[in-house]
Structures are given as C-alpha cells and as structure tokens.
C-alpha cells in the first residue's frame, strides 16, 4: 500500500519533470528539470531497495553527466530559439513515426516480460547473500562480463577520441 503510493507519486513527478524538460523555453531550466527527473528516478530505485543503483544514478547522471550538459548550455549561447522547420507537417509525420516505433517497442517489452515466469525472483534466489553492491558486482563480473568489458572499451574509445580532438598535435 505504502509502496504503491510511493511508486505512483514518484512516477507522477518523473513524468511531470520529463514533460517540463521538453517544454521549457530556457535551455538551462530544461537541464535543471532533467536533474530533478533523475533525482526522482533515484528515489524510485530506493523504493525498490536498489540503494546502490540509486546512488550511482545520482553520482553519474545527476552529478556528473548533466553538469557537463549545463557547462555546454551555458557556454554556447542558446538565447535565440531554433528556426522553425521548413515544413511543419513533415516534422509532425516524422515525430508520429518515431512515437509509434517507441510504442511498439514498449508493448513488445511489456508483453514479453508478462509471458516470462517471474525471472526477477529467480535471479534474487540465485544471487549470493549480502547487500546489493555485492550482488551487482557479482553479476557484472560473472554473467555479464563480456557486455561489461565491451562497454568499458566503448568509453575508452570515446575518451581517446576526445583527447585526439582536443590536442592540436600529438
């Protein structure tokens, strides 16, 4: 009962801030709403007893990545609104297509997970005892080792690329 109430109120805040992110006129305000959105998502993780995920969400997204967004937005002058698209109807059709694609994806994911027999409970049963930091670390370095290493390679490539772009001569 309490958890359902917490979930629905947090979800309402998350969706509300998400709408504000795309409707805000001022880009800096939009970035701020994004931060608020991330913080409420972190609160949702706490409700789900995934404290580790919650702090990482705050540390990496709210405290790290969005700070860089804010830097860019502040340094690049965005006072002027973007020019209107030449053909608003074409833009509308494109938006509709993307929204339809997203809807189909969501329906597919929800439908697939509904047919599966509670995989979350099974995973929780096989996970080693201890807090969820241990559980996450255990899974990352056993079942998900390859995706984990691929993701870190991707980040390394991005980092090297940024260094090469920033340096005039090597």
């Amino acid at each position, binding site marked *: 009962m309490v958890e359902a109430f917490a979930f629905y109120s947090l979800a309402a805040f998350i969706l509300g801030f998400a709408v504000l992110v795309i409707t805000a006129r001022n880009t800096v305000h939009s970035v701020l709403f994004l931060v608020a959105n991330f913080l409420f998502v972190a609160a949702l993780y706490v409700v789900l007893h995934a404290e*580790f995920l919650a*702090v990482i969400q705050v*540390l990496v997204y709210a405290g790290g990545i969005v700070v860089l967004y804010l830097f860019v937005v502040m340094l690049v002058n965005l006072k002027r609104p973007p020019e209107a698209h030449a053909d608003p109807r074409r833009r509308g059709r494109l938006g509709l297509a993307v929204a339809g694609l997203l809807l189909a994806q969501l329906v597919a994911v929800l439908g697939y997970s509904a047919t599966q027999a509670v995989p979350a409970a099974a995973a929780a049963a096989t996970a080693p005892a201890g807090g969820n930091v241990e559980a996450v670390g255990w899974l990352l370095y056993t079942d998900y080792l390859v995706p984990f290493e691929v993701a870190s390679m991707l980040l390394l490539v991005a980092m090297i690329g940024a260094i090469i772009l920033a340096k005039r001569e090597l």
Partner: protein
Amino acid sequence: MASGRLTKAAHGAAREGAARGDGAPPATEPGSGAEPRLNMIDIVIIPLLKIVIVFVAVLFGVAYLVLLERKVQAWVQVRLGPMRVGPHGVLQPIADALKLFVKEDITPARADKWVYTLAPMISLVPALIVFAVIPFGGTAHLFGKTVPLFVADVNVGLLYIVSVASIGVYGLILAGYASNSKYPLLSSLRASAQLISYEVAVTMTLVSLILMAGTLSMVGIVEAQRQAGLWYVFAQPLAFFIFLAGGLAETNRAPFDLPEAEQELVGGFHTEYSGMRFAFFFLAEYANMIVVSSVATTLFFGGWLAPFPNVHALAFLGLVPGWIWFLLKVFCFLYLFLWIRATLPRYRYDQLMRLGWKVLIPLAIANVIVTGAVKVLL
C-alpha cells in the same frame, strides 16, 4: 515480529525495541522507515530527535567556525580579531547572523529569478544532508535504551556522501549563471571545473579505502579499523594526502580558493547575493568543511575510536566517550584548514588543473592498483 504486536501498548513495544539493541539501525534506514510493524518511538521519535540535534549542532558549529577562522587568521597575522561583541568577541556570530537576517535581499534586475533563488538552497541542502550517514559515535545508553549515535547506517554510506556532494556543484554553477554578471559566471566556471577535477581523485582514494575495509558503510569502515587495530591513515598515507588536497579543493578553500579570488573576481560566484541568500552560501562552505573533516576522521582516523585501543597502558583513554574523540579529531582537521589558509599562498589556475589531472589522479589510480595487488597477494 508478529502482527499482533500492533495492538500492544506503545510502552511495552518500546521496551522490546530496546531489547533488540543493535538491531535498531535497519529501522532508521531511509526508504524502509515506513514499516507499520515497528513501534513509534524507535522509527519516528528517536531518528527525528537525532536529526534535530545534528542539524542544530552543525549550524552552531558553522557559526563558531567562522569566528574561529577570523580569530586564527588574526593571531597568525599578530592581530586581535573580533573583540567588541562579548568578551573576546564570542557573541560575534550572533551579531553577524542578525545583521544578515535584516539586510536587504537584492535580486539583480536581469537575473534569472527562479534559478537565482534556487541556487543558494541547492548549495546548502546537500552540505547538510550528508551528516545523515556520518557516525558520531558507537552507541549510547539513554533512559534504558541503546541508541546508536548516527542518524542512519546505509549500506552504501560512502557512495551516498560522494553522490550528494556532487549535487552541491549545481549551487555554484547556477549562482554564477543566474546572476547574469560576468565575474560570478567566470568564478562559477572555475569552481565547477575545479570540483569536477578533484572529485575524480578523491573518489579514487575512496576506492582504495573500500578495498581495505571491504564495506561501503561508514560504521562498517570504523569497525573494520577497530578489528584491524590500525587507523587507515597509517596504511594509506598517500590516499590520505590526496584526500586532504582534494578536500581543500572541493570546499574551495585556500590554497585552492580560486573561485573566490577577490583580487581577480571581486568576490566569486556569490558577488550579486546579499542578506540571507549570501549567508546560505557562506553556511554551505563552512558546513562542507565540517563534512570533509568528518569524513577524513571516519575514514582515516578511526572515527569515534580512542587512540591506540590495543595498547593496554593507554586503556584509560577508552573512558572518554567516543563522540568526544570524534569531535576532537574533527576539530583538529578544521584547525588545519584554517592554518593552511593563513599560511599558504593561492595556486595559479593552470597549476591547480595540472596538479589535479597530472599528479593527483594518476597517483590515486596507482594507489588503488597497489592496494588491490597487496590485498590479493596477502
């Protein structure tokens, strides 16, 4: 815990809660505090009391830290410092607070009003809520109940501190942006670049600490030091040095106080602020100093443990309650901060960035690797 417990009188239930003793911490964890099966006193009244006490103590500590800073600066420079309000100026913080309350609160005409109002709050709130996971002592016995001397023992305590501190950056950036003024903007860019750079090094030192302790809980780290019979400053001197330098930089203190370099930037990101909103930034800076000192005490100097708990000749030191040891150690750190400010000249900005990225971060990463290797080999 049977559901029949709900019908019990609060008094009896409270006694049962006391009998559980150290089992109490899970009840104070955020997120799980709403379980109706537990009794009112354990889940509501005691945490609330602790929160109020910590909050008041921190604000009081901040007020007198400002006075101490002025006094220490004055003594170093062979002056007297504040002497007029009360004997030796002990009432000066109260006079300052009154002055800031009644001052006119000005918002620049072209400022971004909402963000301008929000920025001081974003600065102050993270600095205060970090104290939720700092263990001030072990347990205390009050009125027949065993009360742990911390607000919450979260199993990701250390990460919680880092992540909440990373939210504090927004206060500086937004203050500079919303003022719509050149110098505050420059200062806030400096401040946030500095914070982000040094955050990496500090977080890496915390990783080597976590490797030593094997837990992320602040209480667990102190307990690990008790079991090892060793304060981690002796096991990790390099990590301690990096943490201290990073802590100075993250609180924008001398010798890394470039965001407030008054000769170049008038005053810093808070130039346009006045009255209570200015006071919020001030409070946040000093509260952050207390946070860094408390975290350093907990991680490297054994938190509330008495010095040399294994030496029998010094066992009498254990008679002093743990929270007094904790406060003493924190005070030593705060004094060190003030002493450094009075002694060292300010870094140049490029030197600061070079120190952070080319010295501290590689050293911190090397420290993690060496710690991990030693941990695996031994």
